[in-house]
Each structure stands twice: as C-alpha cells, then as structure tokens.
C-alpha cells in the first residue's frame, strides 16, 4: 500500500523507561469492565506502565457482574497478592470482600467508581472523577455553548455512572432527554440515534458517554440531516481527530490512564515508602475539557492510546 498502514505509524513508538530496584511484588487490578472496551483498555495501559516502572507483576481481571467481581477480589486474596486496585461501582456487592482483603493486610486502592464509599472500606486512596460533578460541568459547558435541547446517549442501560453523568447535565442544564442504545452494536446505535433525531427535530446537542458512541452519533446526525452539535465523554485516538477537525465540539476527559497508573503506583509508594497519594482524600482525575483550543497538547498522546 502506498498510503496508511502500520509502516506509516511505526515511527510514533516510544521507548520504555527504567525499572525500580524494589523487590518484585504482585498486584491485582480488578474492574467491572466488559471485554474489549476502549476506556478500560486505557486504564489498564496506565496500570501496566506503573507496574513496569515499579517492578510489579500486574494481574488484571474483570467481570461486569457484581457478585462475580467480588469473588475476583476473593481470588486475589487466595492468590496472596501484595496489593489490590479495584473499582467500587457496585459498592454493596464489593465491600465485604474488600474489607476482608484489607483485614488480611493487603493494601487496597480504589479507582474510577466509589467516590462516596471508598473511605468506609479502609482503602488507601481513590483515583477517579466524580461523575455527577463531571456531568454538571458538562451542563454548564452546554449552557455556555448556547444549546437548547440536549440528548444524553446512554450506551448501557442501568449503569450507575452513566446515569450520574446524565443526571449531572440535567441538574445544570434542564432540557435533557436520555436515549438508551446498545453500546456493543455500533450500526444499531447509529440507526437508533438517527431515528431519535428524525423524531425530535428540536434536539440541537448530542452528548455521547464514551468516545465510540459519540463518533457513531456523528454519523447518525449526518444520516438524519440534523445540524445538532456534538459533545463527548472520554477520549480516544479517533476522538482527538474529531475534536481537531471540529466534528465534535468538546470531550470531557477523566484521564483513565492516570486512574490506572495512580491506583497501582499508590500501592507501590505505600509499600515502599509509606506514602499516601491524596493524603487520605480522593484524587480527582477529571473532568478536564478537551476542545479545539487545547487539542494540540492531547492529540499525540491520544494517538498512542494513553489519553
């Protein structure tokens, strides 16, 4: 091929840094992700980077089912890991086993979800964003951009953090309607959004709750002949391009890479140096807005899959 392809992009590869000389330890990262999700891929990449640097053997596992995720924590305890980083999006299911791990002397950090509950579990740190605050910031942003009616596209019905984002937007903005789509089915999502835009022509702003869905929404708006503008949560390589060429107005970034990185690094720091990142308080990794004005700074990291 004359254009595109792997050979074009290989130059972008970066080298790896030095490795800590501390003894090798084992840390489990346990999330509620489904397989093959872009967002969690970036989280994992951050965690891997930290593990590499800190001479940690990282064990990643995930299960979207609450009880099964809790049992993964038990599995980590059984495997006698030296630390656990865990998402607490379903705190009630997770709490008993997290407490058990802490009681067994395993330091635990919490990432992404569980802002309200992490402290009560006894974890040593929290790294994530407050979804409602992120939503509210988005609501303010939309007001500032002059939106009139907003469609909030929920790609996983019944997911607490997605609901919180839409609720946050609603708190600050008001005229918001939710639309449920199936995030695992892009063409179907596209048709559903198209039909919604055909049904309600007053919608002038779409907000996707992850990068993939937002990019699909771009297509859908085109299909429906709608002039609605588009905003997004979360970043990706393609999203960076879209923000740059103006098809997407803004993306609310919660820096998933940072979440993964810090959750692992915090365990290492605590073990090797007794540090506590955040000093006993939550460390917020977002929201930060990526727009045309600041895309230059983010673009190349997004291309490398770390933003």
């Amino acid at each position: 091929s004359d254009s595109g392809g792997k050979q074009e992009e290989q130059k972008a590869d970066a080298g790896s840094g030095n490795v800590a000389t501390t003894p090798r330890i084992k840390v489990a990262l346990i999330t509620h992700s489904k397989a093959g999700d872009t967002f969690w891929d970036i989280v994992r990449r951050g965690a891997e980077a930290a593990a590499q640097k800190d001479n940690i053997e990282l064990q990643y596992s995930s299960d979207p089912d609450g009880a099964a995720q809790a049992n993964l924590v038990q599995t980590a305890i059984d495997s006698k890991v030296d630390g656990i980083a865990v998402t607490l999006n379903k705190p009630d299911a997770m709490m008993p086993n997290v407490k058990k791990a802490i009681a067994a002397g395993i330091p635990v950090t919490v990432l992404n979800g569980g802002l309200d509950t992490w402290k009560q579990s006894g974890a040593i740190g929290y790294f994530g964003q407050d979804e409602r605050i992120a939503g509210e910031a988005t609501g303010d942003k939309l007001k500032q951009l002059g939106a009139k009616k907003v469609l909030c596209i929920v790609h996983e019905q019944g997911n607490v953090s997605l609901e919180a984002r839409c609720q946050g937007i609603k708190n600050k903005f008001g005229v918001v309607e939710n639309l449920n789509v199936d995030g695992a089915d892009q063409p179907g999502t596209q048709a559903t959004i198209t039909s919604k835009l055909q049904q309600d022509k007053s919608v002038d702003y779409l907000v996707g709750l992850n990068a993939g869905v937002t990019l699909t929404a771009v297509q859908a708006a085109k299909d429906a002949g709608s002039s609605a503008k588009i905003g997004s949560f979360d970043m990706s390589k393609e999203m960076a391009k879209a923000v740059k060429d103006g098809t997407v107005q803004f993306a609310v970034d919660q820096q998933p890479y940072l979440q993964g990185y810090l959750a692992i690094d915090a365990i290492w720091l605590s073990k090797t140096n007794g540090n506590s990142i955040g000093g006993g308080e939550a460390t917020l990794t977002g929201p930060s807005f990526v727009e045309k004005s600041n895309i230059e700074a983010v673009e190349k990291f997004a291309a490398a899959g770390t933003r």
Partner: protein
Amino acid sequence: MASTIAAPADADDRVSARSIGARLLSRPEIGSLVGAAVILVFFLVTAEPFRDLNNAGTILYQASLIGVMAVPVSLLMIGGEFDLSAGVAVTTGGLTAGIFAYQFSVNVWVGMAVALVLALAIGLFNGWLLMRTGLPSFLVTLGTFFILQGLNVAVTRLTSGAVASNSISDMDGFTSAKALFASEFKLGGLTIKIIVVWWTVFVAIAAWMLLRTKIGNWIFAVGGDAASARAVGVPVKKVKIGLFMTVGFFAWFTGMQLLFVQNGVVQSGEGVGKEFLYIIAAVVGGCLLTGGYGSVVGGAVGALIFGMVQLGVVYAGWNPDWFKAFLGAMLLLATIVNLVVKNKADAR
C-alpha cells in the same frame, strides 16, 4: 343385529377444496407477515415520524443489520442446527480484514480476501467438528463463540495495542470497497443504504434456492429427519457443513459492512449477543427451532419486526426506560398473532 350399509362412492370425496387464500395462509412466513403488519399499523397510529416515508430508509437499515445474517441463520435452522458463533464471527471478519491490511500494509481488498478465507474456515471448522463428534451444535458453536470472542480481543490488542483495530480509511482500495459495502443513494426523498439492497438480493437468492433447487430440498430434509435423509442418499454431512460455511460467508459480508461503515475501524468487543438476535429473527419468522420447517422470507420479516419495534419505540418518543418491556410485549404480540393466523389457516 347385522346390518350392511351401502358402500359409499369409491372416489375420495372427503376433501373439501381449499381456496387459494387458505393455501397462501399455510406458508410458514405468513404469520410473521401479519404480525409485521399489525406492528406497522400500531406504530403508524402511535408514532408520528413513522408516517414519514422518508424515514423508512432508517427502519430498513436497522432491520438489515440483523436481516442479512438472518438469511443464513434461517437456512441453518431449517437444516436443524444453530450457530452461536455467528455474532462474533462478524467481528472476526471485520477485524481480520482491517488488521491484515494494516499490519502488512497491503491493499484493502487483499485483507478482505484473507478475511473471507478465514470466515469460511470458521464455518468449515464448526460443521466439521459437529459432524465428526456428533455433539449438538449448541455446544460446538458455543466453544467457537468463546474462542473467537477471546481471539478478537487478544489478537487486536497484540497487533494494534488497543481494543479497536487501526483505521484503514486512508489505505488503497478503501474507497472502492466502501462503495460496495457501505454507501448509500437517494430514491426520491428516501435515503437507501446499499446494505438494504444487498439484503433484498440475498433474501431473494436464498428463498429461491431453498424452494426451487435440489440443495433447498436437502436442507429441509436434513433438518426434518437427518437419519432418514441419509438413508435415501442425501449427503447430510456436506449439506450441514455447507450451511455452516454459508453462515461464514455472510459473517464475512456483514463484517465488511461493519468495517466500512465505521470508517475502517472495528471494535474488538462487538458482536456478542447478536447471534441471538439472528436466531430470534428466524424464529419469529416461522422457522422451527428443531429444524425442517421455515422460510428465508420469514427470517427477513422477523428482522423487520425487530427493527420496527426497536425504532418504533424511539419514534414514538416513549420513556426509554420502558423500551425493553415494550420490545418484549411487541415480540409476544407478533408471535401470538403469527400463531393465531397459522391456526386459522390450518382450520380452513
């Protein structure tokens, strides 16, 4: 007490003639057609944008997303088997083409050819293993389902470092391939996606093949009673393996559509759960889960019902929380109408 009653006339006069109408009503797909009509009327009444003919393109597109795969899945079901790997095989097809073209920096069409070979090989493997072991297809294809699902994610990460394949939208051959799989055209005020045209063509060919050729006859036979079919000399193994490979071919086709409609990028986690939508479309369309009975047109109508309900709820502007509940009620409604029609037809 013996009594000899006069013997009745010898000719068999017990059969009252059936009207053409009654005969039409006994086709497998008729029930789903009536079900589709009921749902169409329902949404025409309740959802205003449904009445706008220009939006028909969107509904057809939604239906075609399930409908294309419902074609081979209906055939396979009539042939007495399932394929649980059909959903993820689509993703595998798209990923393979994308990853291969990108990694080896070759023309997109070369990647597509490789993907086609792989998709057919998956079908061959499913069919072969099924015939070799005699295990139920549920089990065999469940194994393939998990394996493909795992490989999709793992190989994508291995090659692209992320969970989506690298975009091939700037590579040679992309534009021509996209025109074939993911373009659209205007027909009056109606925007028709090319996949809808393909869908129609596939349904027509498959329906013709099923009803008018030897192979079609064999498909009914192996699904209805494989042992008897084998006993009269039908090559049961070849027919079944052929059906799985047909699923493979369509998975490739749908995978290409996925690849080109998404600008040359495929998410590796997609496709899971889709296999059931295909099966649902086939069953709603009148195919018997146990094989030996059904129609391709029925499967297409099943996909249409599904598409109409999915978008109808949106067009009607109902509270999205209730969407699934509506969908379920509509499905039950459609199938019960289907049943009532069939019973009525049998009674004539």
